[in-house]
C-alpha cells in the first residue's frame, strides 16, 4: 500500500513527465493555447498511460526480459529478447491507439468529438513511450504498481499542460518583447514552472 502511494506521489510531483524529463514537449507546447483542448489532450494521455504501461509491463516481464520465458519450459530459461523491446512497445502503443479510436468512434461519438484529432497523434507522443521505457528501467514489483505509475505520470502531465494553458490564456494581455512572442515566452514560462516543481524534489511518503 505504501509503495503504491509513494509511487503515485512521486510520479505526479517529483518525477513529473514534463518538468523532470521533458517528455511530450512537442504536443505540450503546441496544444496549450487554451485550457479546454489542453484538458482534453491531458485526459487522453492519462488514459493511454493507464493502459499501455501495464500491458507493456506484462509483456516485458513474461516475454521480453532475460529468463522471462522460463514459464514455457526449461529450454527457454536463457532466452533474452530485450533487444526487440522498443519495437514491441511502439507496436503495442500504435495498435492500442488504433483500437481505442475504433471503439470510441463506435460507442462514444461525443468523446471522439472532444479527443478526435489527438488520438492518432498520441501514438508518437514521447510521454507515452517515455512512460513505458521508464517503467522498464525502474523494474516495478508488480503490475499494480506499474498501473499506478502510469496513472501518476498521466496526471502529472495533465496538471502541467492545464497549468501552462491557463497562464498562456492570461498572457494575451501582457506586453512581451516582439522576438519572444509565442514560442520563446512559452519556453521561459515552462522553465519557471519547472523551477517551481523542483520544490517537490525530496518529497517522500
Amino acid at each position, binding site marked *: 500500500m505504501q509503495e503504491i502511494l509513494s509511487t503515485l506521489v512521486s510520479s505526479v510531483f517529483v518525477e513529473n513527465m514534463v*518538468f*523532470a*524529463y*521533458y*517528455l*511530450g*514537449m*512537442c504536443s505540450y*507546447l*503546441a496544444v496549450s493555447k487554451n485550457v479546454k483542448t489542453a484538458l482534453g489532450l491531458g485526459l487522453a494521455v492519462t488514459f493511454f498511460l493507464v493502459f499501455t504501461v501495464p500491458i507493456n509491463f506484462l509483456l516485458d516481464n513474461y516475454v521480453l526480459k532475460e529468463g522471462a520465458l522460463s514459464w514455457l519450459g526449461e529450454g527457454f530459461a536463457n532466452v533474452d529478447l530485450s*533487444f*526487440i523491446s*522498443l*519495437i514491441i512497445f*511502439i*507496436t503495442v502503443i*500504435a*495498435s492500442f491507439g488504433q483500437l481505442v479510436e475504433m471503439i470510441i468512434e463506435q460507442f462514444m461519438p461525443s468523446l471522439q468529438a472532444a479527443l478526435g484529432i489527438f488520438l*492518432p497523434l498520441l*501514438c*508518437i*507522443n*514521447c510521454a*507515452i*513511450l*517515455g512512460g513505458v*521505457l*521508464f517503467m522498464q*528501467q525502474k523494474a516495478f514489483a508488480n503490475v499494480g504498481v506499474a498501473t499506478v505509475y502510469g496513472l501518476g505520470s498521466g496526471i502529472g502531465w495533465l496538471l502541467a499542460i492545464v497549468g501552462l494553458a491557463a497562464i498562456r490564456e492570461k498572457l*494575451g494581455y501582457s506586453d512581451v*518583447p*516582439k*522576438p*519572444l*512572442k*509565442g*514560442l*520563446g*515566452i512559452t*519556453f*521561459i514560462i*515552462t*522553465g*519557471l514552472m*519547472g*523551477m517551481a516543481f*523542483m520544490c517537490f524534489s525530496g518529497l517522500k511518503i
Partner: protein
Amino acid sequence: MSLFSGKNKDILLGPISKKNPVVVQMLGICSALAVTAKLEPSIVMAISVVVVIAFANVIISLIRKTIPNRIRIIVQLVVAATLVTLVSEILKAFAYDVSKQLSVFIGLILTNCILMGRMEAFGLSNGPWESFLDGVGHGAGYGVILIIVGFFRELLGSGTLLGIQIVPQIFYDWGYVNNGLMILPPMALIVIAVIIWIHRARNKDLQEEK
C-alpha cells in the same frame, strides 16, 4: 539534374537556420532539452539523430510506392524502430558510458517528432537522394541547437567542456562559483528561449503576431 542543384542545396541547408526544426518548427524538443546537461551526450545524440533521420527517410522514400496509405504510420514506426534499435545497440557496444547517460532518450529518438514529421512530409513524396539530404539537413539543424545548448550548460554549470576543465582554478580562488542551476532541467528551457530570442531578433519574418 546534378546532385547539388540549387533546390537540393536549399533542402539541405534550409533547416539549419530559417526552417530550423527546434526553434522554428517546434519539433523534437523533448530530447533537445533532456540530454544537454553536458556537451558529450549532446554531440552523440546529435549524430545519432542525423543518422536515424537520414536513413529512415531514404528507406521510406525507396518503398513509398508500395506502402498502403492506411497503415503508413505503422510502417514508418517499424522502419524507425529498427534503425533506433541498431543505433542503441551500437552505442551500447562502443560508447557504453554515454549510452548509460542518455538512458531512455536514445529509445525516444523513435518518437522524435522531427523523424515522423520528415518521413510523413518528405520521404513519402520525394526521391531517395532528396530525402537523404532533407534528413541530414533536419538532423543537423536539430544537432546545432543541441550542441549550442550543451556547450553553454556544461561551461556555465560545471566549468568544463567534454570533461576538461575550462574555467581556470584561479577564478575559483577569487570567488567564482559554478552556476549549479544550469545543470538542472529548467535551465535548458531558458537557454533555448534565449536562442529563439536572438534568432528571431535577427530574422524578423519569423516573429509571431500573438
